[in-house]
């Protein structure tokens, strides 16, 4: 019951937007190149699916995201763990990483185009740079935030460093790593679209940019909606994986 209610509450704003959309296209003289009718967008969506254009665009973009994200997930969790566990590693890496993090992802693109061209390489590097930091920072916070009381318990029972890491630090950090991986995934999805908008010859971002030059606002809107929905789905996948990895968190929440 509560779930149905939650879904209904969540639908209030989308429904209002659709009503507003319908009102604007039917009762004002907004040109269809600015805001097409809902039915026209639906029809275009059907055409894009039938021609297979949408699927192939998505495939190109998703593969880029998965490649880049896989690299930054591994790098981010490893470096975050290293910095969280070792004070020396922190002193060596933290200043450089914190400075690098301040550079907006868009500011990397010109240099990456010069170095890697506009092929697959530059897009994947953009994704790696964009999603690495949220993953690393959150992993580090989870590791170094492990209460010393728990570490003391591990000492009392003479666990070695290796076991202490896997039985105390890592489980404590898992929910934080989850947050980092979710943020990182969202960011890599945004980064790929941004990179494709600027410099690309394929992918969903490229299609959007191309459609804009043809004044096809319906295609632009469809791409935006699809990007949003794919983003939500990927977020849910990470949630499902982590709720299986951290069953104690669910019990804790159930208790409230």
């Amino acid at each position, binding site marked *: 019951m509560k779930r149905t209610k939650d879904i209904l509450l969540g639908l209030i704003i989308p429904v209002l937007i659709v009503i507003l959309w319908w009102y604007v296209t039917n009762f004002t003289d907004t040109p269809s190149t600015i805001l097409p009718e809902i039915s026209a967008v639906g029809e275009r969506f059907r055409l894009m699916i039938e021609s297979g254009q949408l699927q192939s665009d998505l495939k190109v973009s998703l593969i880029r995201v998965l490649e880049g994200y896989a690299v930054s997930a591994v790098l981010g969790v490893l470096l975050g763990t290293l910095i969280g566990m070792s004070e020396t590693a922190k002193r060596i890496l933290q200043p450089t990483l914190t400075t690098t993090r301040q550079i907006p992802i868009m500011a990397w693109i010109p240099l990456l185009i010069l170095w890697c061209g506009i092929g697959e390489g530059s897009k994947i590097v953009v994704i790696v740079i964009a999603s690495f930091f949220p993953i690393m920072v959150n992993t580090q916070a989870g590791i170094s935030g492990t209460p010393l009381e728990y570490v003391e318990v591990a000492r009392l029972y003479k666990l070695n460093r290796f076991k202490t890491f896997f039985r105390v630090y890592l*489980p404590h950090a898992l929910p934080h790593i989850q947050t980092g991986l979710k943020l990182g995934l969202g960011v890599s999805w945004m980064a790929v679209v941004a990179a494709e908008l600027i410099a690309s010859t394929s992918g969903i971002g490229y299609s959007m940019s191309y459609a804009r030059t043809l004044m096809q606002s319906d295609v632009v809107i469809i791409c935006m909606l699809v990007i949003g929905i794919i983003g939500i789905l990927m977020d849910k996948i990470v949630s499902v994986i982590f709720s299986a990895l951290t069953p104690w968190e669910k019990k804790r929440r159930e208790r409230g």
Partner: protein
Amino acid sequence: MAENKELSLEIKQLNKRFNVDGKDVEILKDINLEIKKGEFITIVGHSGCGKSTLLKIIAGLVGYNDGEVIRNGRPVKGPDTDCGMVFQEHRLLPWLKIKDNIGFGLKKSDKQKWNESVQKQIELVKLNGFENAYPSQLSGGMSQRAAIARGLVSNPDILLLDEPLGALDALTRVQMQKEILRIWKEEGTTMIMVTHDIDEAIYLANRVIVMSARPGEIKEIIKIDSTNAKVRGSSEFTYYKNKVYKHFFEDERTEVEYNI
């Protein structure tokens, strides 16, 4: 030497200082203590008198400056399986099921032995049915039981209890005191418990150690040798209670006299 074998713990001339802002602060001064195997010792004192530090030194979690600490005939060099510890906060790891928390200190190489040891502790602290629960699903009293079970799982000779009942409500507290006494009688483990509850100290102990604060020194060791003293409200109980009280509130009494 034969007599020494009967001792669980021997502390000689122990001194402990902490370095705070470049200055040495004396935490424990001139502690001398002999505890026989199977004794129940309670330590009472103001907060900050170093009683928790003393327990951590015995456990091997904290080092010391001078003196000797001998546990089961061997100088303490670090934590070991012959000495368990229960903290004020239960410190159960939230990500481990109760059985895994209890078996935390046991090597899992022999799975069957591990299961048997853990099961024995679960029965001892009466947590049957909660083996697969997570700590967040347990009440405060149950969590402390699980923490006691974790402390006992490796069959230590000494169990150190650092105000383990401090966070519990009054009713659960009295019940847990009875449980601890029962476990002590069943297991015969030497127990050293820090508390700030004088009633609790007298109810549980063979000997009550009264400590003064800054630096922590042993003021008096009170032997509770009457069985009647275990009955709350008996005249013996009150007698011991006054004896302990005297140490903490002598200053106040003089103040009252001034006021009159």
